[in-house]
């Protein structure tokens, strides 16, 4: 990249099971307001303010066609610029990055909102399934994930205990995260005795229903330095699609993630992620996913992630802490999940992560995932140097 893009401000709401007190726009405004105040920027296209907005939300969850309408008034888009990404919010950041690197925009506001509480998760997810072969089976992302977890356990010998350890670690980490919805002190036994949702996934293996929003401001390198003493740079970013049909995939593999990670690492000059990364924030809607995605991200060989969690490599104080924030398991809405991972990575790199701070973090990885069994993967490498 000829020029770098910097993130100059981030904000998250506290994630909550039901924000019946606000509508979608009001929820988004809570975080937009914060990043505007932090940077002192306003909306204008004279080169001194925010000249574009990329939003991320989804019609199915909002129950409204063209959900940009929910937020456009809050992102300065009256007689201004806005566009909406419908994958996970991390892709909206990627999009904003392209807008800036293209020279077409200078300073871009990115915002993602979601109120899972007001929709039926299972129905929405079922509507993503192929209509002929999969939808009529009544599948949703949870039942599909159960197939993936089973396949992972069968092929690589990952155990339910190892998955439970992820849930224990992340919910405990969440106790240090003021934005987390479900900080908990639980044990592996608690996870394994919680209600079975879709074998082998249990209640504590999966993320709760969650409402929340996340916003950030991205700008060109030179402006970023002026706006903040602690800019965070996007060193690499890439995304990738898998095929849709579960029967066409080996669900124990995650080739799209491998490819996205490879591209992002090569842009950022990362050759040994386990050594070179200081902290990783990974989207794990279910506990097994953290293990599977860790392998896809090349933190270890195939089938070895279980050993990493057993050895405590990914816990706070370990060689590569994964999800100090508590991850999605501690409560993030879909679509916001990946963007929240970037926000958390930014806080780590600014040294502003409070009790969940990884000391001296210089390079961080954020990961976002959209769709059935991780069909669409996005990886972003961030740094503070």
């Amino acid at each position: 990249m000829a020029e770098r893009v910097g993130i100059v401000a981030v904000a998250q709401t506290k994630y909550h099971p039901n924000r019946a007190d606000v509508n979608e726009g009001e929820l988004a405004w809570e975080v937009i307001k914060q990043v505007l105040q932090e940077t002192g920027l306003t909306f204008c296209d004279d080169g001194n303010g925010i000249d574009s907005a990329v939003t991320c939300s989804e019609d199915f969850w909002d129950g409204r066609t063209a959900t940009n309408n929910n937020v456009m008034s809050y992102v300065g888009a009256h007689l201004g610029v806005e566009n909406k990404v419908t994958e996970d919010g991390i892709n909206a950041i990627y999009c904003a990055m392209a807008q800036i690197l293209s020279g077409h925009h200078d300073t871009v506001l990115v915002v993602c909102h979601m109120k899972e509480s007001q929709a039926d998760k299972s129905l929405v997810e079922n509507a993503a399934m192929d209509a002929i072969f999969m939808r009529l089976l009544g599948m949703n992302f949870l039942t599909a994930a159960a197939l993936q977890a089973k396949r992972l356990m069968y092929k690589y010998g990952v155990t339910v205990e190892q998955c439970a350890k992820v849930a224990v670690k992340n919910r405990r980490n969440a106790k240090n995260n003021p934005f987390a919805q479900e900080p908990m002190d639980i044990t592996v036994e608690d996870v394994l005795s919680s209600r079975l949702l879709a074998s082998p996934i249990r209640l504590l293996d999966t993320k709760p229903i969650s409402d929340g929003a996340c916003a950030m401001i991205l700008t060109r390198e030179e402006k970023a330095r002026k706006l903040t003493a602690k800019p965070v740079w996007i060193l690499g970013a890439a995304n990738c699609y898998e095929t849709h049909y579960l029967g066409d995939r080996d669900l124990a593999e995650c080739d799209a993630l491998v490819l996205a990670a490879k591209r992002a690492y090569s842009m950022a000059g990362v050759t040994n992620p386990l050594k070179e990364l200081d902290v990783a924030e990974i989207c794990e809607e279910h506990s097994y996913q953290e293990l599977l995605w860790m392998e896809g991200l090349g933190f270890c060989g195939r089938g070895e992630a279980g050993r990493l969690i057993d050895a405590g490599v990914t816990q706070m104080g370990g060689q590569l802490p994964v999800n100090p924030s508590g991850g999605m398991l501690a409560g993030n809405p879909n679509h916001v999940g990946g963007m929240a991972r970037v926000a958390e990575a930014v806080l780590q790199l600014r040294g502003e992560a409070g009790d969940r701070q990884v000391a001296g973090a210089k390079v961080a990885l954020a990961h976002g995932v959209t769709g059935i069994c991780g069909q669409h993967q996005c990886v972003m490498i961030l740094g503070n140097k």
Partner: protein
Amino acid sequence: MGHRVAIVGVGQTHHRAKRPDVNMAEMVGEAVRAALADAQLRAKNVEAVFCGNMETFEGVYLPDHGMADEIGAFMRPGMKLASAGTTGSAVFAEAFNFVAAGLFRTALAIGFQKHDVGSAQAALATTVTPIWGRGASSGAIAEFAQQAQIYMRQSGAKEEHAAMVRLKADRGACRNPYAHLRLGLKSVDEVLKSGYLVWPIRLLDFCPQSCGATAAVIAVEEEAKKITRKPVWIADVVTVHQEPFRASSFGDPTGRETYSQDVAAERLYKRNGITDPRKDIDCAEVYEPSNWEEMMLYEHFHFCEKHKGWQLIEKGITEIEGEFPVNASGGVLATNPIGASPMNRIVETALQVRGDAGEHQVTRDVKTAVASALGSSNWTMLTLLKRSL
């Protein structure tokens, strides 16, 4: 500054009211294959895939995921975007950004909509706010009827003028093999005989619901020159939204409203040194859901003076053979797969710039062309294409 980017291949489906022979993925695949064939590329030569539709119309969540294989996105980067009626243009704009940024050397931009599944007007009724707007929501036709009523009163345009817009659109559509409605209309009277939907909008004053998809392959300068002898350069893209809570985002009886179209045109012309649009631009494809909207767009885009749009159509200036051709393809009035409609405008202008529009190639030599998009509460996007930069 970003890299120069050109359109190197375009493709569209033959638009129809119903496509029971294909599912959504297969239909979109037709446009993708057509665009790749036009660029003489294989799917593996395209580095990223961007697509978009309005997903509540078909009732498919994450539709890009279901069709990843058919659109060449398998093991490829890309994403789906959605921006109401402007979606096709928004997808194109972001693909353009990614290539201009140097993140990809080539990319596919795809717009699609399969109107024979789901219910577009029911979905459209949820565009407005659930508290203030939904009780009065009526889909698209009533909005454009209100706008047409105000326009009639303010400009003195007659229903005959609206009928002339349909005649022009139909003449274009009959010469465009991809167009949906090809009616072979002979006279204004035939249009005026069609029944009112909402006064003054008649059945033939309004766009149809079409099934279709459109795709464009774009490439960075160095690649573009290798791929084609006729690259169409993307000079600029402008996006301007308008507030949904304004009482009259489409038609304002008070005359005080600032319209996104005016702002968009002003920005585009200023940035690109266009002082006399009818001279500096050689043809336009505008997004006109109704006959009336086309006449209003002439005015908003400064193709003529305020309240004189109907005179352009009366004098035949915007005909295919006219001095300033608009919607030679038949436009949205003839063909409206919503998620693809703005992409159709871009692709049709690209064909005009290349001189490859076939029977509906305009008489004027097209070096510069503009494509517009319209969506939601009167949002506008403009894309400026050129034969050389």
